[in-house]
């Protein structure tokens, strides 16, 4: 029978032996990071600057008539994301944002210089048989860019294996 005075103390119910060996110390818990942080390579600022540069390139390409640059940016973004070990849930919205910003820049530039972009958007929507609101044509334009970027990203994501 165990000593009542030992009740509640280490080894109190272990019959036959007293003073069982201490368990191995547990590994300290890993610090919690948001899910998109772990695994990527390179500083985040660099990635952000790269994205901005991509958006500017898309905008310049649009001015040159290279409407397909969002797709190319999507391809490049997919490859870079694989290399940088970014997760899809990060790469996807990033590529969409870069494409949308890339095509929004020329529109904003024209508007800043006094061109009636909103009125033109309304005209475009009306000519296309869509509801004649400026937001409809602007949204359609940005969607075309975003679709291209996502398609490009999807393609490289499928072609390049996970590292």
């Amino acid at each position, binding site marked *: 029978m165990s000593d009542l005075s030992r009740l509640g103390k280490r080894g109190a119910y272990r019959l036959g032996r007293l003073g069982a060996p201490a368990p191995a110390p547990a590994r300290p818990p890993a610090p919690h990071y948001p899910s998109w942080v772990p695994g990527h390579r390179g500083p985040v600022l660099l990635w952000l600057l790269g994205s901005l540069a991509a958006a500017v390139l898309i905008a310049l390409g649009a001015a040159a008539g290279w409407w397909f640059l969002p*797709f190319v940016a999507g391809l490049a973004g997919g490859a870079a994301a694989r290399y940088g070990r970014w997760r899809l849930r990060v790469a996807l919205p990033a590529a969409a944002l870069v494409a949308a910003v890339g095509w929004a820049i020329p529109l904003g530039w024209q508007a800043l210089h006094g061109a009636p972009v909103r009125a033109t958007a309304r005209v475009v929507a009306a000519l296309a048989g869509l509801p004649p609101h400026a937001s409809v044509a602007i949204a359609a334009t940005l969607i075309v860019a975003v679709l291209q970027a996502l398609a490009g990203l999807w393609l490289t994501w*499928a072609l390049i294996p996970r590292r």
Partner: protein
Amino acid sequence: MTLEQRRSRIAWRVLRVAIPLVACAVLLGVLAFGYGTVPALGPALDPGRGVWTSASGAELPHSQALSLPGLDHPVQVSFTSHGVPSLRAASLHDLVLAEGYVQARFRLAQMDLERRLGEGRLAQLAGPSAVSSDKFELRLGLVRTAEQEWAQMPRSSATAQALLAFTKGVNDDLAQIRRDRQWPALFSLAGVYPGDWTPVDSLVIQGDLTQQLGFTTTPLDYALLERALGARRTMAWFPVLPPNQQHPYDPGPYRKAGLVPLQPGTSSSQSSATKTVRPAPSPSRSAVAVTAAGDSAARPAGSPAGRSARPAGVPAAEVTAASALLAEVNALPAGQVHTYPDSNAWAANGPAVAGGRSMLAGDPHLPQTIPSIWYQVALSAPGYQVSGVSVPGLPGVLLGHNQHIAWSLTDTQNQATLFYTERTSKSRPGQYFWDGAWRRMRQVHYTIAVRGGAAVRLTVDLTVHGPIMTQAGQTTSVDWMGNVPSPDLAVMLAVNTAHDWAQFHAALANWRAPSQNFVYADDQGHIGAISAGYYPEVRHGQPWLPMTGTGADDVAGVIPYSSVPQVYDPSGHVLATANQRPVGPSYPYYIGTTANFFDPGYRASQIYAALAGGRGMTPATFAGVQTSLTDPLARRILPALLGALHQPGARLTARQQQAASLLAGWNGAMTASSAAASVWWTFWTDYLTAVFRPWWHTAAVPVHRDPSGLKVSPDQASLDEVLETWTLRDPGNAAFTAPGGPRRTAPQVIRAAFATAVAHLSAKLGGTPSQWAWGRLHSRQFPSLTQADALGYGPRAAGGDPWTVDAADGGLVASQGPSWRMIVAWTGPGSGTGQGIYPGGQSENPASRWYEDQVADWWNGRYLPMPPPGSSAGVIRWTLRP
């Protein structure tokens, strides 16, 4: 891992790559090339090059110097705050070149649409929905006529030189756009871009206007009516001469001076020049017999005499052909062929006007589209000073004034379209029988490019009369005066530089189509009018019906210029044309019937009533008439209507009494706020229906074949005229009694129709008659030329109806009316003022401030000063340098 698992894994890996690969290819393909009628959205929505570049075209121009290749000397351009340019050049060549450039700068899409329309190339831009229009136009042959005109035009002539300079100016603008890639949104969105301009394009646009004003399918409607109603009733209800009181501007006396041949080398002239007209071999029915049985007034002096080669009655095959062709025409975009008879122009001089010189007013009524059919401009070069409105795509000014004369136009609306039933045989394919022998049809082959669809091949057969328009039922060709090469441009350039009536009159001698009433006023105080153009006369047959094509009913010639309707310095010091029959019943030539060919004359009567006896009238007086909303028919009918309602024994409900009391205190003004106007219009519609619909129903008139030409409605000028006449002078006419029904008189039908009208209005607008404002029933809209609803203006509640001087045509949502209002007052030699306005704006770009900035002024009856030729007072100035 089993073999099967391994295979499935490999397949999955392949699919994982293949699916995105295919999806990307499809996406990029669709974005790059489009699919069906879906445009290539990649380049179209590219924010740097696509539709968005049109935003810069919407910005107002700023003062600058521009380089314009082809100029010999600099040209100064000065824009008013509404974008009306004044061009000053050192030569006519430079002036016209600059005009071409400026027109294209602000109306390129309109110009391209118009040339595509006439050349049968609309489907290339608009897709499969436009194929039927292209087929129709290629059959009719505007482009063939334009090519013929250009081929016949000596290159050294002033007209050819003007066309070449104008073409150069348009192409200068196109070159700039190509360089800057700033296309109008319409092209960027469709991915179809306009090619270079050519002189033929300008001549095709001239043809568009001719078609709009002069091509009609009324003879086909007559065929359907006669088949259903019989010849006697058809000619009684759609007579040649108007039965009502009208006011021709040329009251006579008239002189019959025989006929002159058409211009050699045309389809019509080939027949008239080479044929020997022979009596028809088949049993025939003479025009005299028909009209005598129908209406004593139906056969005017000058009607075609003799026996027609046409068999009695309308054969079923003719009905089939007419139905097929009408269906094709009804599918065309609105306004492509002549539909509504509305334009006004008048002049006054001497004591009638302040200052004792002369004054002119003009308001052509055409489809009120945005952009407008007009582009306002002032042009100045040595020997050429003119201000007014031009037609985008054509050099010069069509309506306006120079330093000495002012002029405006209304459509004469004489019959200029003749249909022929060609005799063909299955044993002789590709041939037709004419002038005693079988002839081979000439064939022209076309390939119609279709955006988003396969190209369509079309073969057009040509006979001596003109193109075969349908082979359904029978082979039907059309002999249309618009297919006769007409030096309209040369005439207009000569009119632009005329200094007096003699020069004006001489210039118009060569005008052929569309026949127009040219109204004139000069700085010496003279006024005049002449209905220039071709009036085809057939030796036999009834030209208001399809005629036999074997030769007997061919065109024998046209009325000599000296005998066409005209007047100079009338004794009453006032003259007015509003598409009414320009001459009285004793005019010795056939020029058309009451059905579509002429207006019922209400507007003309109203104008004469407003101006008659006027002394010291001013531009404000004319403006008041131009914007008048008085319905003359209402004023004529109201006494009979109220008399019928108040006859002893007539019982009216309380609501009917309220409606009647509205009419009793009404002055006939169709204002938007007038409840009486609603009562009147609904009554007249129901009155027409009550009288004629039973006959239509019994005779099974095929209204669905051509609702605009056959439906019982106020749009049928003939029915309005005869019903007015019967109501006022023949209330016991047998037509009031429905077939098989009890005998009725006009008052009985009036009371029934009034009750129906009140019931209709109660159901639609509620039970309080005082709240039945006309504007709740009636509106105007100015549709976009692109047919995009959101780019048009309206519908907006509006006053007016087809018979008010300020006309509103096209039904309860009117889309046709005064497309330009102009008043020119001469105060001394070389001294005068002009004012004008049109519902729209100078720019075709909907994002521009000049897109519809004149609508408000037009709507409120205000005018803008027309810049005098050579003006440099504008707020924006360009210098165009070689």
